[in-house]
């Protein structure tokens, strides 16, 4: 167990309040008061998130001695992009709740949810371009584009219960991993450090973190390590066979698969799969597959060491526990 600098529960609420306040306004033009609902919508959206991505950016930035003002910009950027995607995602999926509260489109209106998401992305571009690093602006735009591509593809496989894990990984690499990659790479870009070897290694690290986070999140749907109390079989019931679902279904006959995806409760799901023991075995196998990714992550970390300056090696220490936090959910 790591003494986590990431999600210390005692300091969590204070940190989030500070983070939200800090993230909201980078430029005076952010969130004008004359726009009705926008400030309320923003406060609702940001008040219950963990701000994990912002913390990750700040961790990396801290070791690189990125100025505080730039750190604030980077943290704001990643949270704005992430939350813009959530605003749109909830509307696309018609999800009524977000983090246990009414989703923005449901509480305000679908129109406001769309506009607020667009507004966040627009502010990202305004503030980043003011900062002046053209490579950072370009990279951020690429990441937003990837994220949307992932959303688009994911929407195209709704109700497809024969989709395989390899294809889902491609979607998650775009949809989920792109922001993790951004968190690791953008602080370097903000300092105009563009070494391609370094960036490609960070890209691969971010890709693995995104994949692990997504797969762990998908396991919550089956009540595995579900400390957050996420609703059970939510993905499956809304027509989306997630990565764990695809993993367990891959060797089933069409008939069994068809029964499996119609499950309304976890017990029913386990029963269609062949019982608790088989279900537990599948979880174990899934964990083993992901454990290999974790080992690859640590191998890449050792390669990253040679690409950093000695005074930046603290990054490695902060990166070490990330797989434990994101996949195993050990804080």
């Amino acid at each position, binding site marked *: 167990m790591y003494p986590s600098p990431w999600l210390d529960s005692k300091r969590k609420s204070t940190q989030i309040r500070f983070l939200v306040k800090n993230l909201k306004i980078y430029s005076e033009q952010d969130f004008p008061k004359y726009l009705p609902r926008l400030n309320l919508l923003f406060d609702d959206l940001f008040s219950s998130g963990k701000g994990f991505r912002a913390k990750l950016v700040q961790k990396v930035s801290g070791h690189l001695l990125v100025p505080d003002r730039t750190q604030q910009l980077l943290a704001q950027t990643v949270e704005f992009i992430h939350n813009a995607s959530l605003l749109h995602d909830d509307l696309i999926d018609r999800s009524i709740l977000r983090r246990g509260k009414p989703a923005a489109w449901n509480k305000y209106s679908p129109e406001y949810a769309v506009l607020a998401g667009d507004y966040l992305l627009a502010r990202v571009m305004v503030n980043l371009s003011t900062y002046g690093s053209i490579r950072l602006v370009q990279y951020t735009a690429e990441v937003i584009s990837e994220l949307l591509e992932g959303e688009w593809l994911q929407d195209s496989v709704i109700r497809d219960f024969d*989709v395989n894990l390899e294809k889902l990984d491609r979607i998650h690499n775009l949809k989920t991993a792109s922001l993790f990659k951004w968190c690791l790479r953008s602080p370097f870009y903000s300092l105009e450090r563009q070494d391609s070897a370094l960036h490609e290694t960070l890209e691969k690290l971010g890709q693995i973190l995104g994949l692990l986070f997504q797969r762990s999140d998908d396991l919550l749907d089956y009540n595995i390590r579900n400390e957050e109390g996420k609703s059970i079989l939510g993905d499956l019931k809304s027509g989306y066979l997630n990565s764990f679902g695809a993993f367990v279904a891959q060797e089933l006959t069409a008939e069994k698969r068809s029964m499996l995806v119609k499950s309304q409760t976890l017990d029913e799901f386990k029963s269609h799969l062949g019982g608790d023991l088989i279900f537990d075995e599948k979880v174990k196998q899934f964990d083993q597959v992901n454990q290999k990714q974790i080992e690859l992550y640590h*191998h890449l970390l050792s390669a990253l060491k040679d690409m950093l300056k000695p005074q930046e090696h603290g990054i490695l220490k902060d990166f070490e526990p990330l797989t434990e936090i994101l996949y195993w959910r050990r804080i």
Partner: protein
Amino acid sequence: MASQFITAKKGTPEFDQLITGHFSETQRALPVQNLRVGSSDEEVTFEIIKIQDIKQKFAYVGFLGPKKILFVLFPVFYFSMRDWNQPFLLSPELECLILGLILSLLAVQIKVDIQDFISGYDRIRSNKGQKVLSRGWKTVFQLERDFKIFALFSILFSIVPLVYQPVRVFSLLVTLLLFYVGYKWGVSRRNRLNRDLALALIAGPCLSFWILPQVYSLAFGLAWGFLIFFALQLEHFQNYLAQTQAGEKNLITLKSFDQAPQILWAVWALMLIVYAFVRFLTSHIAWWGGSMMILIIMSFIWRKSLIGLKSPAGSEIDKVVLSGNQLYYTFIALWVAELIFQALVAPFIFAWFS
């Protein structure tokens, strides 16, 4: 048990040892990740696995799957059945020709697999054959050795047909030229269209002329080449998402996903037209009409599912490709049935009536 990974830079002795399988007698190095692909300092991360942990299968089955072996054996079958009464059928010429073709196919498949493995191309595609190397069933070193053996024997067996009919040398020369133009140029430019065209011409007109050096063979070869070209495009279509993400260029990825099915359909329809024309010259009108009717009906059923595809990421595309493959096999099966009927059944019926 914890996995072991090693990263090596391309071109270094360490990389060569790992990629060829020379580094250990008891372990295999399987590439899992490429960094800086295509640059001078490209690096590859290998996972080190004990040979005993690999579930090995007979590797050559992957190289000689039914689809691939039909590429070369169907034309041999076609000409054998068509010229049933010719001495060619039972001559050493035909036997050597068949052995030479199978060994050539095996050698080419092995070489392609080695190149795809070293370049990392086989990791882009989800359905690239048996992945003999990336699964650790064989090492590059072992396959290079096998390639040399198969290539040598294919040359030896090909000498006999060449001696029987020296005019075959034209086919050989054109094949070598196409290999150079299509394969080398295609690989270096990441443009698979040239490679596909070259393969279709080699397996179509060149192969047909090699089997039976007559002008008619070229007409058959053209129709056959189209079918091969379609089979290659079908494979690209299945990998549409991966290939477009990797920036690979081929006929199918030239257009957006909404238009790609139209291209695939156009290739199939064009092939059917060429086939109909070639078969019209040689088939009985009743057989020609019947088989064309079946193929046209099946084609339009397939077209419906092809055009209705919603996503390159879902499972639907695999099902459509499976139906496309079934169409391909039905097409050949109808042709085979016709040839058997013409060569074996029709003479008896004709004799009985007369």
